[in-house]
């Protein structure tokens, strides 16, 4: 049994690593076609690993990715596809910026208060999708896509109409009222690595315990693996959908907090943009497992942190986005192929076993 589990783990990690190499190879071809030297590009990109600034930036950029990937993965575990992390994050960002600036609390409590507000706001926005799915049978993929754009419009409108404050000092950038310093998430390494990194690691730990070590997690995975069987054993699928969606939304609320509590300390347009979407790719590469998410989040964080170095060599840093897209594609295609191969192998084995039994009976 244990050997089988080990084997499966090895196959999973191998296919993910293979996907990364496939992406590197395809990007090398793209670089070559567009007249850039791939060897020089990769040497520059991966040479940056040793630089301390890049290392810290990697962790900093991986922070929101860990959280958004966990938010997506918890849905995936029961075949629930929450594409709405971006919108839930956006609603949580504005809500937290406004509510956080309105209250007075001592430092550690204020940060905690902000995080709780963010989680509630994210969960509230995701509850719309949950309600639509459970009560009205609306597919969550469609509803969360629509809700993303609605969140974008409504948040931009509310910010513009009610909460924007012209900044007194710098530039024309409009923001909400700045959060009091008691609500700032402290840095681990000054201006390089924010304390949200610890929170993100705790989120991954929470995700692991919740999904693999609790009764709820067992039911969640059972609903994902075989909904019919789960229902027969007394799991209420609607209740599971609602809970999973709410937890996913609550985590999504935390995604933007590094930017809000750790960096800008106020809401502005375009804050933490794309961080919710990027989590989908990270969750896919990490196969919805906390350890996998840890590695793939670090990889994606590193790629975007080191991509700046490419500019110095006159190579557009956007090659990294292409790489991330190809990685997602490669990983799902390889997984599909491996699964197919595995099924065929099991089938062959079963056939051979059956034939052996037949022969034994005949003899």
């Amino acid at each position: 049994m244990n050997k089988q589990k080990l084997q499966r783990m090895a196959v999973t990690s191998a296919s993910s690593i293979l996907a990364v190499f496939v992406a590197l190879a395809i990007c090398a071809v793209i670089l070559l076609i567009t007249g850039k030297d791939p060897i020089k590009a990769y040497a520059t990109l991966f040479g940056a690993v040793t630089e301390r600034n890049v290392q810290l930036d990697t962790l900093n950029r991986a922070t929101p990715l860990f959280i958004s990937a966990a938010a997506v993965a918890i849905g995936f575990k029961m075949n629930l596809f929450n594409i709405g992390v971006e919108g839930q994050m956006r609603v949580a960002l504005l809500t937290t910026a406004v509510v956080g600036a309105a209250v007075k609390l001592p430092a550690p409590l204020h940060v905690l208060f902000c995080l709780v507000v963010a989680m509630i706001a994210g969960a509230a926005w995701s509850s719309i999708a949950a309600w639509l799915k459970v009560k009205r049978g609306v597919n969550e993929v469609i509803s969360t896509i629509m809700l993303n754009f609605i969140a974008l419009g409504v948040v931009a409108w509310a910010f513009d109409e009610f909460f924007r404050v012209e900044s007194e000092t710098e530039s024309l950038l409009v923001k909400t009222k700045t959060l009091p310093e008691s609500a700032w998430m402290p840095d681990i390494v000054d201006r390089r690595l924010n304390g949200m990194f610890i929170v993100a690691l705790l989120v991954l730990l929470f995700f692991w315990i919740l999904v693999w070590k609790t009764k709820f997690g067992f039911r969640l995975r059972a609903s994902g693996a075989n909904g019919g069987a789960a229902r027969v054993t007394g799991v209420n699928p609607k209740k599971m959908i609602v809970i999973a969606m709410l937890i996913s939304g609550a985590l999504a609320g935390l995604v933007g907090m590094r930017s809000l509590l750790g960096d800008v300390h106020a809401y502005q347009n375009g804050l933490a943009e794309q961080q919710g979407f990027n989590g989908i790719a990270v969750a896919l590469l990490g196969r919805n497992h906390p350890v996998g998410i840890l590695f793939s989040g670090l990889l994606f964080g590193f790629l975007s942190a080191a991509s700046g170095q490419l500019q110095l060599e006159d190579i557009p840093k956007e090659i990294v986005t292409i790489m991330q897209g190809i990685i997602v594609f490669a990983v799902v295609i390889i997984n599909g192929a491996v699964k197919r191969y595995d099924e065929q192998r099991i089938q062959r084995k079963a056939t051979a076993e059956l034939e052996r039994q037949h022969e034994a009976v005949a003899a």
Partner: protein
Amino acid sequence: MSTVELLPAPAPAPRRSWLHGMTRHRKAMLLSLGALLIVSVVRVFTEADDLTSSGTVSATIRVSTPILLAGLAGLWAERAGVVNIGIEGMMIVGSWLGGWAAWHWGSWAGIGCAVLGGILVGLIHAVATVRFNVDHVVSGIAINILAAGTTEYLSIIAFKGKQGGGESQSPPGKKGFGSFDMPFLTGGNIGTWKTPDILGWIENKGILLISDIAGIMKGFLSDLYLPTILALALVPFTAWLLWRTRFGLRMRSSGESPQAGESLGVNIARVRYQAMAVSGALAAFGGAYLSCVLTNTYRQGQTGGRGFIGLATTIFGNWTPFGVLRGAVLFGFPEALRLRSDEAVMALFLVGAIVLLLLSVRFFMKGRVVPGVVSLGVAALCVYTWNVVDAVPQNLVAATPYALTLIVLGAARQQLRPPAHAGMPWRPGENH
């Protein structure tokens, strides 16, 4: 005694409502005429002439066309059983290729190149979902990431430092499309002679209903571009193909029940490849429409989520070509109106109030109190908004298509008929 007398006298026809027994088309005609009358009355009352002006109508057509093409792309994919979240990415590819090829060889080349690129991306999605059985949504997301990244990368390689171009913008295209007007009706030219603009003359008279109809007709018949006509022609063509041809039947079977289709000898995989190639081509055409017809340059982020509005349109239009057209116009109209005058957008609230009022009367007559009261309340809210607010914020206008689609999905799901098998995993030879 003749046999005729033995037959009983025909029973008197039961009294029916006057709407009953009419063909569907007549009903639709009558309803739209009624709607037009309401709009017309509101126009005269509020003096928001842009509500039905030819300028608004032709702006609506221009704004709606890319949405229509994206919606048709979704329709083609889903009717064949493939969910296409990657429409946005395919549009991005189309707009980039359109801008690039128009810069080199002119606008028709731009659209041609975009269509070829779109077919390629559509086929990538088809290979992933059909051959490798990848989750349709995941593959679509990957296409969106990939399209955005690739075009940003290539822009820097191809456009940076060129005259009129930049890191996120192509140089202007060579020759754009000329627009043309209909002779006699909207003042087009025959040779060098400028014919009279009859519809325009009627429109400017400001008569109730008649001027409105003239304005709308003029909007349809003036300031035309060939690609627009092509795009509009795709609607009846798709309808004909889906319901009147063998290929359409196969495509629908692929979307409704691939097992059944396969058991009757349909090559489901091939049908899905073909449909996805068309879907990609349509989406890319929609993208190129932005960079070759509406403007003459590609700009980063030009598609601005229209691929997702297209997806919403597919749902809103109940997976039928004319439904998609209706959805595209409905979603494009407020946007076009906003471009022309805020006053006219606010007048829409009044139109909505009247429609809701009539609806509530109908509910009350049928004895359904709760929906009657709700629509009456919303009608009052509309009147209040019209009275108090001067202009609808742009951000909220942008969010309306999505909100409307969610409301339709949530409230009128019984009327929606999505292809039964769209997005489900399927392998050849399964479940026999």
